[in-house]
């Protein structure tokens, strides 16, 4: 039986929800699963990390920030040396991609990032599937050498593991060198917009053309009582504050209805909205990747559609 190590994601000292999904991916492989939790006070997280299927929790007390990828890489290397896994699983998030590929180089691990499936073939060898080219192609990948595999798994794909009865834990002391990256200042989004609670979201993208054009969408959203969101280019251009941004570096939303106006469907946007219950996309480009993720689509001018919306309400 092979051994799978899951690297827990810790955000602001708490266990992030994606950790349960990474454990779910590891348990589904049928391996012995060891979960590593590195935090300022990791013992406080053991109860929340006692997922069904985990055989042991290894805790590492860390003196620095959970955003520091230089420290995270050193800690992961020490845990891997201690546990000697065949497969290492971590979520495909900014924290993990910040150190994972560098770790793979330093420890000579095979690397697959943003995997959407992991399985064992009839000989027990690991294979993975990546979703590429705007989701239009699935690539099956294999690992031809006997080096351990680091698999970064896409969030919201695996069923999260449930927390069960307490799992035995042990602590591992890790000496780290000071980080080469110095943190100076942290800014969190402010504002009273909470997109995560909205039942319906109207989201606007580069296709709205200019800041002046946003007024009509904001008007319709307000009159219908739905939340207004945006893709990254709209926020980068300064047309809407960052608190409205849906995507990998914005908010992740799962409303009952997500209407995308003039959004092409870049990877980082899809990461934030693809689990919405119903997705409706309006775009002038019928070949836009967003249509591959939508239940309903219309190839139409968003300005004409919003004018019609204004006249219908």
């Amino acid at each position, binding site marked *: 039986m092979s051994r799978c190590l899951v690297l827990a994601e810790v955000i602001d000292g708490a266990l992030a929800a994606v950790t349960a999904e990474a454990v779910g991916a590891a348990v589904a492989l049928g391996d012995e699963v060891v979960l590593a939790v590195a935090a300022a006070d990791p013992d406080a997280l053991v109860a929340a990390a006692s997922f069904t299927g985990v055989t042991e929790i290894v805790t590492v007390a860390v003196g620095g920030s959970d*955003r520091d*990828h230089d420290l995270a890489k050193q800690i992961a290397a020490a845990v891997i040396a201690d546990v000697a896994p065949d497969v290492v699983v971590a979520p495909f*998030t*900014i924290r993990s*991609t*910040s*150190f994972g*590929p*560098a*770790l793979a*180089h330093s420890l*000579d*691990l095979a*690397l*697959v*990032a*943003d995997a959407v499936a992991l399985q064992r073939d009839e000989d027990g060898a690991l*294979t993975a599937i990546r979703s*590429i*080219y*705007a*989701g*239009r*192609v699935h690539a099956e*990948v*294999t690992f*031809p*050498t006997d080096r351990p*595999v680091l698999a970064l798994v896409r969030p919201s794909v695996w069923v999260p593991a449930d927390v069960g009865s307490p799992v035995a834990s042990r602590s591992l002391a890790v000496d780290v060198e000071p980080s080469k*990256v110095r*943190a*100076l200042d*942290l*800014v*969190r989004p402010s504002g009273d917009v909470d997109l995560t609670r909205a*039942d319906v979201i109207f989201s606007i993208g580069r296709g709205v053309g200019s800041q002046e054009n946003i007024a009509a969408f904001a008007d319709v959203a307000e009159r*219908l009582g*739905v939340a207004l969101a945006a893709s990254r280019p709209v926020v980068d251009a300064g047309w809407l504050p*960052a*608190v409205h941004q849906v995507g990998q*570096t*914005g*908010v*992740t939303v799962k409303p*009952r209805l997500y209407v995308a106006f003039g959004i092409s469907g870049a*990877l*980082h946007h*899809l990461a934030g909205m*693809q689990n919405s219950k*119903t997705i409706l996309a309006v775009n002038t480009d019928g*070949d836009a990747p967003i249509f*591959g993720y*939508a239940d*309903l689509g*219309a190839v139409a001018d968003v300005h*004409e*559609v919003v*004018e019609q*919306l204004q006249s*219908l309400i």
Partner: protein
Amino acid sequence: MKVAVCVKQALEVSRYLEFTADGTRVDPAFVTTMVNEADLSAVEEALALVESAGDGEVVLFSAGEDGADEALRVALALGPQRAVRVWADGLALDDARTVGAALAQAIAAEAPDLVLCGVQSADTGQQSTGPVIAAAWGVPWVPVAHGLSLSGSTLTLHRDFEAGVTETVEVHLPAVVTIQVGANVPRYGTFKDKMRAKKADIPVVEPVGLPAPRMVVTRLTAAPGGSGRSLEMIKGGPADVAARIIALVREAN
């Protein structure tokens, strides 16, 4: 100062597509190419840094076959001084580790002060090349960054996390930084730069001693609808689309 920037010729595939006979590539007839968007922002960031430093050069790198020259020429037209293509027969471009290690070899030979990459490629999106280059070259790195400013050999920059969290960090050069999508608006090159880019001599550097790829693509399959949802196109004009949206909103609210 010398800034190296890595660029990639990203692929876009059409909705209907076919694969090559061995099943590991999309048939080129169904592919269009473009320079990866985040990489052009990396080029812009590099040019701005060199301008504010007062002197220096920007050198472009791309790993790939002849087609990578196209990406290098598009990026050269923005103003970088030189471009280098990294290639050896059979270089495993699917394996981010191989690509990162190959680029790191060519980059180390140039000894730049700073290496910039786009945060991820729009086609296969592994977010891995930059951190692998840093590890292979043995320098610190900062991913998903924007707003770079340099004072002596200290680089100050912002890095993004999920949920809109941004951290300001500093790092000493040499270092590798991956540039966030939309970090800036890449300039249009001058007519002179465009002409120069067309005629530029692009040397090929051959990486040596790379280990066998640790990850290989064995088979591609079409995935109609990225998410497995079945798409219904709304019939009619803008008024019909608007009416359908309102009906759905009333249902969901």
